[in-house]
C-alpha cells in the first residue's frame, strides 16, 4: 500500500478502510477498461477493423454495469458510514467521475459504430491523421486523469485542464481541414461527416477527462474548480 492509499486507510474501523480502498480500486478498474475502449475504437477506425469495432460495442455493456455497481457501493458507504471531510469528498467525487467514465465509454461506442460503417463503405480518404492525433492526445489526458486520481496529484490534474484547451484548438483545426475536403469534392461529404462525428466524440472524451481532473482537485484541495477560470484553478492548486 502506497502513501497515497494511506490517507484513506487509517480509520479506526478497518472495514471502512477496506470499503474506501475497494471503491478506489473499482473506479480505477473501470477507468482502465474505458481507456482501452477508446484506444480500441480508434484502432478499429484507422485500421478498418470491423471485428474490433464490434467488440468495443459489446464491451460497453460491461462498462455500464460497472457504473451501476460503483454507484451502489458509494451509496452504501454514505448510508453506513456517513463519511466526512476527505472521505466524503472521495465518495462524492467517485459518484460524479463514474458518470464521466460512462460517458467516455459511450463516445468510444459511438466511434466504434462509425468505424464499422466506414469499414463497410471502404476507407474514408481523409481525416485519419487528425483522428489519430486527437485520439492520442485525449487518450493521454484520460490516462493522466486516472493517474492523478490514483496519486491524488492536483498539479497533474491542473495540467489536464490546460491540455483540454489545446485539444479544443486541434479539433477546430481538424474540422476546418475536413470542411476543405468536403468543399473540394462533394462526394467526400458523407464520409467526411462520419469522421467529423468521430472527432467530435474524441473531443468530448477530452472534456470528460477534464471533468475528472476537476474532481481530483476537489478531492485533494477541498475547493470546487468547476466553472472557474484557469487563474482560479491555479490559485487553488498552488495554495497551501
Amino acid at each position, binding site marked *: 500500500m502506497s502513501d497515497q492509499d494511506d490517507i484513506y486507510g*487509517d480509520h479506526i474501523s478497518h472495514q471502512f478502510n477496506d470499503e474506501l480502498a475497494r471503491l478506489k480500486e473499482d473506479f480505477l478498474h473501470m477507468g482502465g477498461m474505458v481507456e482501452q475502449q477508446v484506444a480500441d475504437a480508434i484502432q478499429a477506425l484507422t485500421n478498418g477493423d470491423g471485428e474490433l469495432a464490434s467488440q468495443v460495442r459489446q464491451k460497453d455493456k460491461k462498462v455500464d454495469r460497472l457504473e451501476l455497481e460503483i454507484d451502489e457501493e458509494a451509496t452504501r458507504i454514505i448510508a453506513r458510514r*456517513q463519511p*466526512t*471531510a476527505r472521505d466524503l469528498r472521495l465518495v462524492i467525487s467517485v459518484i460524479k467521475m463514474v458518470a464521466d467514465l460512462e460517458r467516455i465509454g459511450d463516445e468510444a461506442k459511438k466511434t466504434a459504430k462509425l468505424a464499422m460503417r466506414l469499414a463497410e463503405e471502404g476507407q474514408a480518404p481523409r481525416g485519419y491523421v487528425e483522428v489519430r492525433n486527437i485520439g492520442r492526445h485525449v487518450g493521454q489526458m484520460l490516462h493522466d486523469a486516472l493517474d492523478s486520481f490514483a496519486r491524488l496529484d492536483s498539479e497533474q490534474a491542473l495540467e489536464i485542464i490546460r491540455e483540454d484547451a489545446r485539444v479544443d484548438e486541434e479539433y477546430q483545426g481538424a474540422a476546418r481541414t475536413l470542411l476543405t475536403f468536403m468543399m473540394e469534392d462533394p462526394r467526400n461529404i458523407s464520409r467526411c461527416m462520419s469522421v467529423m462525428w468521430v472527432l467530435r466524440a474524441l473531443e468530448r472524451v477530452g472534456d470528460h477527462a477534464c471533468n475528472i481532473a476537476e474532481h481530483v482537485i476537489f478531492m485533494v484541495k477541498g475547493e470546487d474548480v468547476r466553472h472557474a477560470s484557469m487563474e482560479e484553478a491555479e490559485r487553488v492548486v498552488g495554495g497551501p
Partner: protein
Amino acid sequence: MNTMNATGINAATTEGGQTADATEDRPYGPTRGQPFADEARFKLRDVSVYYGETAAIKKVSLDVARNEVISFIGPSGCGKSTFLRTLNRMNDSIDGCRVEGQLTLDGEDIYSDSRDVVELRARVGMVFQKPNPFPKSIYDNVAYGPRIHGLANRKSELDDIVERSLRGSGLWEEVKDRLDAPATGFSGGQQQRLCIARAIAVSPEVVLMDEPCSALDPIATAKVEELISELSESYTIVIVTHSMQQAARVSDRTAYFHLGHLVEVDETNQVFTSPQHELTESYITGRFG
C-alpha cells in the same frame, strides 16, 4: 497577555489569536477558521480553566453570536464540557477549579465579584446529559424557576408561562391533560424536553446543552434536535455533543477541541467538508477519538 480595555475587545487580541504560529501556548497553531463574530453575545478571550494545577482549557478565544447554534466537539477529556460550564459559572462549585481570561456576556464580565450568579444562570440556562426533572409534577417542574425568580404575580400568569414553555419544548400536546402527574413517570425523551421547558421557562437568552441526547433513543433525539432548530430563532444555543452527526445536523458553527485547545471553529458545512486542521480532519473522519 492583557490586551483588554474597558470598552471591549482590543483588535490586537483578535489579530494575535489568528496570526501567531505554533507556540508553547498553542502547540497546534492558532485556532483555524472563524472564532470571532460580529454580533457576539459571549466574548471569550484567552480563557484557561484549571483543576488544581492542571489546565483543562488553555487560552481559548471564541465569540458566540446572537441566535446561533454552536456545537463543541472533540474526544473525551478535551475540555469541551468544562468550557461550556464556564459560560454560566457551573464550575464555581468544583473545588480547586479556577478560571482565567476575559469572559463577557453582552459586554459584562461574567466572573466579576459583583456578578449575581443566580441571575446569570437565569439568563444562561442549562440542560444536562441525563434528564433530571424534580420529583414533582410536570407543572411544578416548569413553574419552579419562574416562582423563585418572581416572574409571575398571579396564578394565571404562571399558567401562561408553563403553557408557553411546554409548547416551546414541543411537549404541550402530550402533557396538557396531565400537568399534575409526576414528571418522573414520563419517558426519557419527554423528561429531557421537560428539562428544556424548565430551562426556557425563565426566559433565558442562552441555553447551554451538555450532551442533551446521549441518553435518548433516535426518535427522542430527532425531536430534541428539531426543538433545537426551533429554539434557535429566539435563543442562543451552545451544545456539547459526542455525536458528530448531531453537530453536523443542528449547528451553524462547530468548534473542535483537542487536549484543552480550540483547534478549529468554523461554519459547520466547512468543518465537515473541508476542515483546515489535520487534527479536525482526523477526528471527524474517525481516524482517532
